[in-house]
């Protein structure tokens, strides 16, 4: 985790002028659970002071989060009328953020990747997307367009397409960045070094989370799902094995309720476990206020541990994480790291027992300091702003070249139309020329 990977150490192509930029902000803002929504809420108030930001979403509302909002399908018109300097996307798994995945293929920009592994194939429009071809055409204008309707091999679940279509990818997980650098980047670079990938931490606000209460009974909190990856079948028996009194608050999705109840009954911990429905950072903050230890043992490449983990660490709670996937990047001075496997139960029990015997606040200090600095919203907004400033000239060039690609597409489309309308099998006259060309001109479809 070299510091060289951090966002603020990018080489600038020119001295960045600190001017106010027009930014098109594509992000879901509705999903209570979503990370992009959480980040938008924390960063936009700060960034909007410096830049002109307009939101693009699936909502018809004219304002969102205090800023102008448009339906994302109108983005091209807005850009035409008053061009944006940067298109900024937040990529996340889930239905609410699908539109971001779709529009990434339409307009290049800077993407903040929160989820590198996507649990579904996405919108139908992206299934047979000729994105690899489009990238090649971007670098080589003379390439003809891809043949229509070929069934393409869908690369999945890693977000190859989405990562490739942005010239600059920011990752909110170092693990994901590493995955990207080792697995994806070589595959998607049409030109070596054309792509830039860096780490940018998510902002965290622990405001509103009270200091930890008295240490007995020891209070645990978790947001892991009741599936195998959530490791509930490991930590529940470990909790059961604790001698002194404890309690656990389990924040879950309503759809997971029955599965969670079955697990709780199976390990006979019904009296000490409370299920709370409706996952969101706000709910989690409430729960943390009355907890000491947060359990984040989820071992899966899907999903993101933040902001839940960081909220726990930043507010002075002890955390226990898996040392796999996203958990790898948590420093081992910040949280107890468990290796899943045969000895997982023993490790977890060992940790719980150790926690019982120690003064919590001394153990939590390093993590708190780390979150306070690394996930400080003001600092991240500054980083992001700097990235915008420094990449604006490059993005301008890229958008222009992309524009040229679209001009070629227009020409190609009109050629297809003419071909269709002038098919000599059906007509002796050139239908396009004789009947339609006037209308095309009048409608602004040809020039």
């Amino acid at each position, binding site marked *: 985790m070299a510091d060289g990977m951090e966002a603020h150490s990018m080489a600038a192509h020119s001295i960045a002028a600190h001017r106010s930029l027009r930014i098109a902000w594509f992000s879901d803002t509705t999903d209570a659970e979503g990370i992009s929504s959480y980040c938008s809420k924390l960063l936009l108030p700060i960034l909007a002071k410096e830049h002109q930001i307009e939101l693009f979403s699936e909502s018809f509302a004219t304002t969102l989060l205090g800023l102008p909002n448009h339906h994302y399908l109108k983005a091209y018109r807005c850009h035409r009328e008053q061009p944006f300097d940067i298109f900024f996307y937040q990529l996340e798994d889930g239905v609410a953020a699908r539109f971001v995945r779709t529009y990434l293929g339409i307009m290049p920009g800077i993407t903040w990747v929160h989820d590198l592994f996507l649990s579904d194939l996405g919108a139908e429009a992206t299934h047979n997307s000729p994105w690899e071809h489009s990238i090649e055409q971007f670098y080589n204008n003379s390439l003809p367009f891809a043949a229509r309707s070929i069934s393409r091999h869908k690369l999945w679940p890693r977000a190859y397409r989405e990562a490739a279509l942005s010239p600059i990818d920011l990752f909110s997980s170092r693990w994901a960045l590493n995955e990207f650098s*080792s697995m994806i980047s070589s595959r998607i670079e049409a030109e070596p070094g054309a792509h830039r990938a860096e780490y940018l931490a998510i902002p965290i606000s622990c405001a509103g989370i009270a200091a930890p209460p008295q240490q007995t009974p020891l209070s645990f909190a978790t947001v892991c799902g009741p599936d*195998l990856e959530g490791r509930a*079948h*490991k930590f529940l*028996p*470990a909790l*059961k*094995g604790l001698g002194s009194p404890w309690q656990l608050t389990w924040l879950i999705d309503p759809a997971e309720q029955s599965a969670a109840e*079955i697990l709780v*009954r*199976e*390990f*006979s911990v019904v009296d000490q476990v409370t299920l709370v429905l409706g996952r969101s950072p706000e709910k989690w903050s409430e729960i943390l206020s009355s907890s000491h230890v947060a359990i984040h043992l989820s*071992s899966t490449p899907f999903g993101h541990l933040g902001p839940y983990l960081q909220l726990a660490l930043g507010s002075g709670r002890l955390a226990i994480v898996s040392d*796999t996937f996203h958990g790898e990047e948590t*420093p*081992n*001075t*910040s*949280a*107890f*790291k468990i*290796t*899943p*496997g*045969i*000895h*997982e*139960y*023993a*490790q977890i*029990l*060992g*940790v719980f027992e*150790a926690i019982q015997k*120690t*003064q919590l606040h*001394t*153990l939590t*200090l*390093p993590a708190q*300091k*780390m979150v306070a600095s690394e996930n400080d919203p003001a600092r991240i907004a500054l980083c992001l702003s700097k990235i915008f400033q420094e990449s604006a000239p490059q993005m301008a060039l890229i958008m222009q070249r992309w524009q040229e690609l679209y001009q070629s597409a227009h020409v190609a489309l009109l050629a297809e139309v003419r071909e269709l309308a002038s098919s000599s099998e059906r007509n002796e006259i050139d239908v396009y020329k004789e009947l339609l060309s006037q209308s095309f001109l009048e409608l602004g479809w040809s020039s």
Partner: protein
Amino acid sequence: MSEPVRELAQREAPQQQDIPTLMAQIRERIKSDIERNLDSRSGISRATARFADERGISFGDMQLSEELKFLNRSFSYQDLISRDRVTTHRTGLLGRLLVKVKGRLVEFVRRVALKDYLQAEEGFNINLVRFLNDMARYVDARDTNGLSALARVDDEKSLAILTAGRQLRELRESFEERLKTTDALVRGLEGTINNIKTYTDPSPPLASEQFQTTPALKADTSYLLFENRFRGSKDEIARRLSIYPEIFKNAQAPVLEIGSGRGELQQLFKQEGITSYGVDLDVVMVNVANSLGCTTQYGDAIAHLRGLADRSLGGLVAIQLVEHLTHAHLKELFELAKKKLRSGAKVAFETINPQSVLALSSNYFRDPTHIWPLHPDTLAYMATLSGLKIIETKMLSPVSPNQLLKEIPSDSSHTHAVADAVSKINVSFQQLNRLLYGYQDYCLILEVP
């Protein structure tokens, strides 16, 4: 996690332990538990899991179910068709007669008419019940162990996968690090070679003349020469020089060492009873050598050789010298060797092996008076052109094993894919080791015909 913050945390609570320490203690404890076979805590808790399904049946209950018990008791119908069970409600003689008749009938039915069928049916029922018993046992066993078995499989597999994955990643990272260094090395090489090309000049002055005109340079380079010649500990030096007495032991006339430096080899020759003397350009070195009882003189090697009588020497040795000579001088040196040595006398030239990138980067390029890296083949070729006979090209100064790129040990937990990848990586490492960390010096041993 930065060190200062960690130290800060420790300073603030010197008695308390921090998270990594605690975690390490836990892991240690587990490890020792396992070693002492106290793994009662490993695996999932043995606490009975009561899994309630819709009918309220819990684990282990199937075998005890009433239905199965009944079946086990009553699988044979034959017993139902028995004489003893024949009754009638009629009384009196008629009754008794009827019973008898019925009884006979029943016997007949059972023994004769339905015999085969009844037997078959009984057989079928026995088998069915046996099967159901087995099923019940199986289901019970699966129910209790099902979750733990599933979890265990998941554990073992996931541990293996994770370990393999992590190993692979570490390999990749160390590989990339090394690759970066090599990359830098090669670039340095290219740069330096370009620079060196500007050094070569058709008829440069003798090295001695060069030094005389630039005393500062002389001081600098003699320091470097010193570094180069005497790199390593006394033992290493002694080891490196040990091959030479062997080569020159049958010398019939004095052996000349050009570039004799502080006289280590001279001393060694003296010890072994080989008559020798040395010539060196560095006055300081010459004085040092002579003070130790050697016979060395100040002078330029080639000039000295030119001044000797033909066929007067019994041997010629130059350690870390020929790379300082220009092509023309080197050529001349070979010719002089042929001329000034007796027939059958040996010539030994030791120089840095440019096939080893480490030697080049660490040893060769330090000295700006090195003219050109002398590949063993090149030097040998030049020797043969001059008519000298090649006895041997001895490779010297191998790199210590702990400097080499380490191969990955194979592990029984590796899957085929992983083992395959590991062996490929190892082969690559071997290749790289040969390229980067080959022998650092070599000695060309020639004989004057």
